[in-house]
């Protein structure tokens, strides 16, 4: 009789552990997916801010056509980019173009003093940072998730239900690495 109870208890513990582990893995995987979509949200935020910025600058420095056009082209290229690699390249070009644009403001004190311009500058700085932090969060979540599915005994549950390792967000060429914090 006692043996029966012991066996039942052991089975109960195993089943409970199983459920807890499974739920934990699901939660971590969803967190990764959330983090990934957050990157896109922040990228979109930047694309939406840029036309506004260009219009403001045009008002004060309309003959700096080259720089302005470069920004617009870079933005459109980034919107149209397909795949992580292409997008990362386009993003990099856009950051460079924006940097030139903000450097412009040094020669145009009226532009620099413009409240709208200052506000947009802060918003774009923040957006660059947010993109960086969103990627960082995605990589952190991925690291946690990948570790969780490889540890014992989680790996058994992971194997049974097809939990796969996720790729980190990485930029292939060293020239494209940007620090997460950008100050124009």
């Amino acid at each position: 009789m006692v043996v029966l109870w012991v066996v039942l208890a052991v089975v109960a513990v195993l089943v409970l552990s199983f459920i807890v582990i499974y739920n934990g893995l699901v939660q971590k995987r969803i967190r990764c997916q959330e983090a990934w979509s957050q990157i896109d949200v922040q990228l979109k935020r930047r694309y939406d801010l840029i036309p506004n910025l260009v219009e403001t600058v045009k008002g004060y420095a309309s003959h700096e056509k080259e720089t302005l056009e470069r920004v617009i082209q870079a933005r459109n290229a980034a919107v149209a980019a397909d795949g992580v690699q292409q997008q990362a390249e386009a993003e990099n070009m856009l950051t460079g173009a924006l940097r030139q644009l903000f450097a412009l403001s040094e020669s145009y004190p009226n532009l620099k003093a413009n409240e709208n311009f200052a506000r947009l500058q802060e918003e774009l700085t923040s957006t660059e940072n947010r993109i960086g932090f969103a990627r960082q969060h995605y990589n952190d979540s991925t690291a946690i998730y990948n570790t969780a599915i490889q540890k014992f005994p989680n790996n058994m549950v992971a194997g049974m239900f097809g939990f796969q390792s996720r790729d980190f967000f990485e930029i292939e060429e060293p020239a494209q690495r940007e620090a997460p914090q950008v100050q124009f």
Partner: protein
Amino acid sequence: MPVETFHTLIARNKRNSFLLIFVFLLLFVGMGLLIGYVWGAGEMAFAWIVAGIAGTIAFILILLSYFGGPSALLSLSRARELKKEDDPQLYNVIEELSLAAGQPVPRIYLINDTAMNAFATGRNPKHAVVAITVGLRQKLSRDELQGVMAHELSHVRHYDILYATLMAVMVGVLVMLCDVFLRSLWFGGGSRRRSRRSKSKGGGAEAIILVIAILLAILAPILARIIHLALSRQREYLADAGSVELTRNPEGLAAALAKINGDTEVLEVANRATAPLYIVHPIKKFEARAKKIFSTHPPIQDRIQRILSLTV
């Protein structure tokens, strides 16, 4: 200082915290039992009842303070809530950190004081509040501001508010218990009970236990406070490491702490009760004078050193 990553530092601090809390719980239960034993003239059942009552009181107090909310603290500190339009840069800095942490954006308050300080409160990330003084807000660069805010957000992330509440209540109840016990002996309560229930236990053994109980009742509150403060310092180091984990920029927070350290002004609205929640001890003279074991915050130079030695 050996070079370490914030991952290992965070793991080590968490282990240390659990150890300290465990020791504290032992102390609490042990004292409760001992005192109950003496009062009950050797009856273990009574001892457990006393420990149980003390534990229940502590539990209720913890629940009350935990759910009481941050509003009392905020009105105490002359704080005003900020919306994004009031200070876009501050809002952006905090929202960026919330992204990095994967947490909701906390409510933001501005404290009308020229001294340089900041604090966080709120029982979990969903109900978090961060506050910063006007003085600090104006004197820090964007990176430094982000370092400080990341430190405060880390306190919320690590549930430090919960720890602080737990510890404060446990220490309070323990001190009260020991105090009541010592007074009861002074008024001869124990001996009356002993003669009524005289058992065949040797009078000598009981006397020894009584002496030990008295000694411990005097020492326990001091020991409890030391443990409480050690725990508080651990959590500060942990929050510093947490800040680096979020920003990946040790220099930001280190520079901010150095700036704060150079500032000699005393925060008018803070007092000893609210001191542990601030990023640095708000009463400067106290920090300079206090010996290491009795301080809620580690010395700033030490913190700066540790932060800069972290590799990201």
